[in-house]
């Protein structure tokens, strides 16, 4: 009874709490809904882009120029049966797709879309994002184990080893960013890059930038690092047994993760919401009117396009070569460059860190 009265005291009598709760929920919907829409049309863009690269038209039957294709796909997947394999752990089997999707959406909470536009302006925003993206791997591993299937387990094993290896390289690349920016707050990281295109971090941190994006491709299990799926070797890897909506959630999670990695690359190395002509004599004032979120979107789109381009052009990596690239090439390079950046910051090297 005391507890109930306490609950009433907290939520019922103090209306501000409820108002805050509703406000936060509305904000979450305002962030998540466009992202889900973006994910749907990202799949359409992928099929179109790869289609044109292979001299085909891609989807062009549903709606004008095939624009309604993602909606048709979504409806189809929703009405398909979700089959539970015999001997599968039902709870974990259905939980796994959600674990893949949830971190990819939750990470947007600390993401600054603009100078002001951010849901939670957290001090340790970069750490929060690192922690959340590292949780996503559980979806793949649990799916592989709970499916009670050999191919799924093989896919999960490959994925676990790969993601752990590339997460270290990615983490080190981000350590370089935080040393250069002197802050873990994502907004402050963008503010530290203030200026035109040549004062952003992609130039002084060029090796880290390249390693970050390649590690991001490996983390999301995308071509050429898609050995976890490896359709020519292990059928479809960790999600062989999934069908219908359970599969669709995996699919959403993968694309949401890709968009997140692209957006983070834009934020941390390409100046986020900053205009590329900021502070330039003629072009600077000419593009002053463009809102920051447009620049952010354009930069994110470039990286998102790179993902599709990679998939259309590169053959799949061999597994031992993936491991060698992660452990023996990327990690040493990042460590050396962190040292270089540290020295540059301490001795206030001109151009970027003075």
């Amino acid at each position, binding site marked *: 009874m*005391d*507890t109930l009265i*306490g*609950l009433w*005291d*907290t939520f019922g009598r103090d209306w501000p*709490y409820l108002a805050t709760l509703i406000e936060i929920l509305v904000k979450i919907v305002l962030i998540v809904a466009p992202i889900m829409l973006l994910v749907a049309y990202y799949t359409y863009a992928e099929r179109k882009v790869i289609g044109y690269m292979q001299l085909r038209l891609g989807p062009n039957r549903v709606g004008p120029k095939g624009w309604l294709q993602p909606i048709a796909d979504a409806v189809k997947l929703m009405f398909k049966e979700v089959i539970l394999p015999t001997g599968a752990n039902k709870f*974990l089997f259905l939980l796994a797709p959600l674990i893949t999707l949830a971190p990819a959406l939750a990470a947007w909470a600390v993401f600054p879309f603009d100078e002001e536009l951010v849901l939670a302006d*957290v*001090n*340790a925003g970069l*750490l*929060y994002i*690192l*922690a*959340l993206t*590292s*949780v996503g*791997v*559980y979806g793949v*591993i*649990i799916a*592989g*184990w709970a499916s009670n299937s050999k191919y799924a*387990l093989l896919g*999960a*094993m490959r994925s*676990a*080893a790969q*993601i*752990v290896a590339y*997460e*270290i390289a990615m983490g080190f690349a981000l350590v370089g960013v935080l040393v250069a920016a002197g802050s*873990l707050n994502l907004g402050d990281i963008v503010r530290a890059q203030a200026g035109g295109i040549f004062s952003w971090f992609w130039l002084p941190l060029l090796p880290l930038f390249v390693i970050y994006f390649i590690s991001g491709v490996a983390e999301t299990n995308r071509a050429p690092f898609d050995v976890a799926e490896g359709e020519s070797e292990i059928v479809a890897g960790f999600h062989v047994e999934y069908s219908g909506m359970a599969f669709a959630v995996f699919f959403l999670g993968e694309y949401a993760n890709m968009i997140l990695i692209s957006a983070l690359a834009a934020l941390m190395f390409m100046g986020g919401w900053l205009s590329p002509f900021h502070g330039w004599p003629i072009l600077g004032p000419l593009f002053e009117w463009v809102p920051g979120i447009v620049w952010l979107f354009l930069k994110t789109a470039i990286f998102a396009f790179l993902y599709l381009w990679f998939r259309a052009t590169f053959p799949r990596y061999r597994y*031992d070569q993936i491991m*060698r690239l992660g452990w023996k090439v990327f990690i040493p390079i990042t460590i050396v460059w962190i040292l270089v950046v540290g020295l540059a910051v301490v001795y206030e090297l001109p151009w970027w860190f003075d």
Partner: protein
Amino acid sequence: MSFERIVFFAFAAILIYAATMVITRRNPVHAVLFLVLAFFASSGIWMLAEAEFLAIALVLVYVGAVMVLFLFVVMMLDIDLATIRAGFMRYLPIGLIVAVAMAALMIMVVGPTNFGLEQIAAPERLGADASNTEALAMTLFTVFLYPFEIAAVLLLVAIIAAIGLTLRQRPETKYQDTGKQVRVRKGPDRVRVVSMPAEKKLELK
């Protein structure tokens, strides 16, 4: 009852439930997943105690890396419960003694006599802009620099020891030398030009 208390008790209940499940579950994969849940719950409690850096680092390091490797190993084990439980009754008495001794020690150290608001006053709430990460780094890299570096060296020794223990040369296995592969030249190493004598000219009759 304040909102904070409700959150604390919720996390504490989840933590205790998950920790109990870790040691009672038969299936080791389930046990590992419950351990992950326990880490999340304790991370939530640390977050309440305004230790954001530690809370996030717990998820990042333990959940994101260590437990993934745990799962990796446990999933590949072929578990035979009969052999595991074979010595259970034989080791039960000594196990019980150790367990009771541990519990008694823990109660003595972290029991109500040493902790609680009477012994140590609650720290004041920090402002919204207080950076836990910065405060931690400031103490860690100034006051506790030597212990920090000694710990780092110990970890390095452990890494080298682990690699040294598992590294073995197997002459029967064929390895690829990536350095050699990279150094292959386009002309002489890949293509061999063979000069063969021309065949005899065909004579038409």
